[in-house]
């Protein structure tokens, strides 16, 4: 099971646009480090740093094939993080939509609003 530090790190990892792009690429299939560096206008050492962050939090793993290091998306860790975030975001979005509507309702009828206050 992932340790708490690792899980904290998952959010740090997902916060960076380059790392998110790397994850999007790996979602299509494994890739060598140099393949991953190609679409980005940054140095191999910088890519390597991003990969280290992703590896540390368990979102990817790296294995060596001949002289290549192959990166692999750890689907389960990744899905757990994304699902939780998505679900939570959806709940707050819908909750806010309803609150917005509710605030309109109670402000449209001032008498009800006052009554609410008097209920205390």
């Amino acid at each position, binding site marked *: 099971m992932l340790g708490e530090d690792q899980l904290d790190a998952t959010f740090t990892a997902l916060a960076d646009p380059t790392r998110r792009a790397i994850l999007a690429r790996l979602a299509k299939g494994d890739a060598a480090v140099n393949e991953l560096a190609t679409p980005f206008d940054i140095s191999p050492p910088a890519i390597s740093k991003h990969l280290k962050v992703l590896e540390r939090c368990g979102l990817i793993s790296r294995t060596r094939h001949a002289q290549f290091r192959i990166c692999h998306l750890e689907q389960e860790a990744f899905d757990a993080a994304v699902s*939780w975030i998505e679900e939570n975001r959806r709940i707050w979005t819908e909750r806010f939509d309803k609150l*917005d509507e509710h605030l309109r309702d109670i*402000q449209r009828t001032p008498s009800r609003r006052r009554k609410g206050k008097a209920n205390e």
Partner: protein
Amino acid sequence: MSDQTSVAHELSYARVFDAPRELVFRCMIEPEHLTHFWGPIGVRTPLENIAVDPRPGGVFETVMVNDADGSQYMMRAVYVEVVEPERLVWTEALSGVTTTSTLVDLGDGRTEVRIRQTNVPEAFRSPEAQAGFSTSLDRFAAYLRQLSGDSER
């Protein structure tokens, strides 16, 4: 500024409401109001399922009910901080997730509510998270759009 610090192990949402701050604050602590909006779409929170004791150490408990199949979702939290009308902090007992609501008076009759969730990682230990989820590239793409679209500055 690096966006790493703002999103690292926490999540933020914000919304501007066309209502005075005092009213928005009351909506967030009074069951009579909460019952109207607490559940997301398709989920209601009956008045009798809401317990609120808005003071540090007081409970904030809700049982939401899914309209479709009647399944229930319980949230048990305890208030850590209650500063009327600007700040509410509660911690969920099971997950350890702490939610901070900050209400900002925009000075023109509108109020911005900022929700910040910290200590989120514990939530990953839930059975659902451990069982793993299936996800698709489409969902991931949508998620990325959301994340880049409204990340907090």
